[in-house]
């Protein structure tokens, strides 16, 4: 079961239905033991987002990528099959592929020149006669595939655990939101080059919280909201909701934050785009029916797929992957997902608009990063203070509505609570959560699953 260091301080979460409070132990963001548990229990036993199939469109394409600290090769073999191999020579462990991306039929280790086909088979072992049973030996020395790989709507997931349930079972209610993305345009979607690679000095769970937290939008993004208002678009938090999709997945449904390229027009997109948007919306209604077209086109979604995938289906579509590096450090990788067939003017407008908001050089994401880095620094204030009751973060917002059976709003913290409840199960800590009082029936019925 991976590494299992001495038990981390429990409880990680205190949920109180009498006081209507939900509190998270700040050790969850700081502790090396908790981090080791996450690596050993979560990252080793869950489906992880590896990449999008369109990143390796052609036979022999490959990308090198690290998940859970493990170097991997994500490639398409000569026959067109998608693979994920450990990026480590089966001989002595050398990183086999030292380029970040490219196209090759063969991966050759520079150290002893062992060579492998891109379907994992051994192609050559120099001086193979030196091994006693050469054929058998050779057969045992192929590239190590990750135990499981499945693809949903082009999104490629892997697991280091051969016994995980099928991907669609893990995705559950999140799967359909990924299908909605693929259905946005005739011809489907594709990733583009120009990957945003950046590190954050904060725990990975702060990035998840931030994405599921509509409460921070107005104060944190004051300057961006101002820009939207000046460009003639009203911004509102009304009628925006948060959903727990189960298995740790969460969803914000947003209708008031800016427009959506080719879906919801706003003045800053210009008149030509208004005409294209109307035509596209009509095409969607015909293709998908009014109800489905409404869900696909008229709502923005922020979808979190536990534990490492965020889909910002907002002004445009960004795929964001989280790679925890240390308790207080996370690598982020972000790709833009765009319609395969798109008018060049719309594409240019899309790229400008998406980048203006998301990414470490945008007008909004830097403030989010500032927030999670500031949390990471600030939570040292109560660490080991001898007053453990102070060393908790509060995520109670919206619990009063939760008891009444009212749908959680995007500006509440219900989606974050869903994430944390699943997380505490997933890290396998006994006594990880303390529940005081009784969870109300409205909560237990799963009323907030859309």
């Amino acid at each position, binding site marked *: 079961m991976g590494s299992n260091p001495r038990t981390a301080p429990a409880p990680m979460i205190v949920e109180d239905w009498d006081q209507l409070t939900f509190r998270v132990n700040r050790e969850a963001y700081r502790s090396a033991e908790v981090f080791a548990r996450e690596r050993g229990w979560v990252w080793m036993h869950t489906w992880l987002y590896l990449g999008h199939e369109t990143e390796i469109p052609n036979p022999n394409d490959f990308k090198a990528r690290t998940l859970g600290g493990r170097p991997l090769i994500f490639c398409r073999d000569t026959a067109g099959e998608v693979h994920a191999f450990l990026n480590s020579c089966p001989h002595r462990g050398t990183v086999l592929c030292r380029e970040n991306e490219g196209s090759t039929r063969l991966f050759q280790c520079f150290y002893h020149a062992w060579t492998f086909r891109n379907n994992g088979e051994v192609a050559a072992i120099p001086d193979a006669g030196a091994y006693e049973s050469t054929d058998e030996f050779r057969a045992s020395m192929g590239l190590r595939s990750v135990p499981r790989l499945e693809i949903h709507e082009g999104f490629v997931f892997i697991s280091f655990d051969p016994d995980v349930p099928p991907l669609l079972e893990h995705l559950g209610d999140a799967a359909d939101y990924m299908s909605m993305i693929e259905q946005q345009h005739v011809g489907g979607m594709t990733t583009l080059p120009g990957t945003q690679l950046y590190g954050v000095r904060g725990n990975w769970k702060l990035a998840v919280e931030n994405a599921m937290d509509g409460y921070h939008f107005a104060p944190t993004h004051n300057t961006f909201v101002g*820009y939207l208002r000046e460009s003639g678009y009203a911004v509102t938090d009304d009628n925006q909701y948060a959903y727990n999709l189960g298995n740790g997945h969460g969803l914000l449904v947003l209708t008031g934050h800016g427009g959506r390229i080719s879906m919801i027009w706003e003045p800053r997109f210009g008149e030509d785009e208004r005409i294209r948007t109307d035509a596209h919306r009509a095409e969607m209604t015909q293709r998908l029916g009014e109800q489905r077209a409404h869900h696909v086109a008229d709502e923005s979604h922020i979808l979190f797929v536990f534990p490492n995938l965020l889909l910002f289906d907002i002004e445009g579509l960004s795929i964001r992957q989280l790679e925890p590096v240390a308790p207080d450090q996370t690598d982020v990788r972000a*790709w833009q997902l765009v319609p395969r067939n798109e008018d060049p003017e719309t594409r240019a407008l899309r790229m400008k608009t998406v980048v203006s908001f998301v990414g470490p*050089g945008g007008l909004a994401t830097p403030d989010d*990063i500032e927030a999670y880095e500031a949390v990471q620094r600030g939570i040292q204030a109560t660490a080991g203070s001898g007053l453990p009751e102070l060393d908790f973060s509060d995520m109670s917002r919206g619990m009063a509505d939760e008891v009444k059976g009212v749908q959680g709003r995007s500006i509440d913290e219900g989606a974050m609570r869903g994430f944390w409840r699943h997380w505490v199960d997933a890290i396998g800590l006994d006594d990880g959560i303390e529940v005081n009082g009784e969870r109300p029936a409205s909560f237990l019925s799963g009323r907030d699953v859309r």
Partner: protein
Amino acid sequence: MTAIDNRSSVECAGRTITRQEVEDFLYAEADLLDHWNYDGWLALFESGARYEIPTTDYRPGWSPHETGSFVDDDWPLLLARVKRLKSRKAHAENPHSRTHRLVSNVRLSAHTASVNSTNGTEHAESTEDCFRVAASFVVHRARDGRFDAYVGWYEHLLVPTEDGLRFRLRRSVLGHESLAAGARLSFIL
């Protein structure tokens, strides 16, 4: 055979622009940015200009209109960026980063665009009112008790005007493999 062009000057819009003139412009720009004089900095742009930072996997020839970027600002976005940075509510830069910039390896060349002739062949054509500047930069940045360095190349388009040089395109290309933790681009690179 490799020839090293004489890049100490360039002909543009009927004028001879010297490298020294361009270096003075870039040094003055660095000074404005390092002293957080964003109005002064914006005055170095012609109306309609662009500001771009490609991603670290950038390859020459990529268009920001067809790829992801870190910054892809047209004129209204650049105005919004400067307005934002001057606000107390630009949390990522409040308090401001301390920056210190070094600019070197300045080279000038004519701006040419590939033009398809009627016979279908491509040829390079000099456009008359702007020229290219390549330069190296190192930007040191102190914030939150950390010190980061950003290195890379500038690929600018400059326009000579009556009032001096002006940016038409200001592009910073990073030499990094990725942005190190904490090294977000919340200031002007």
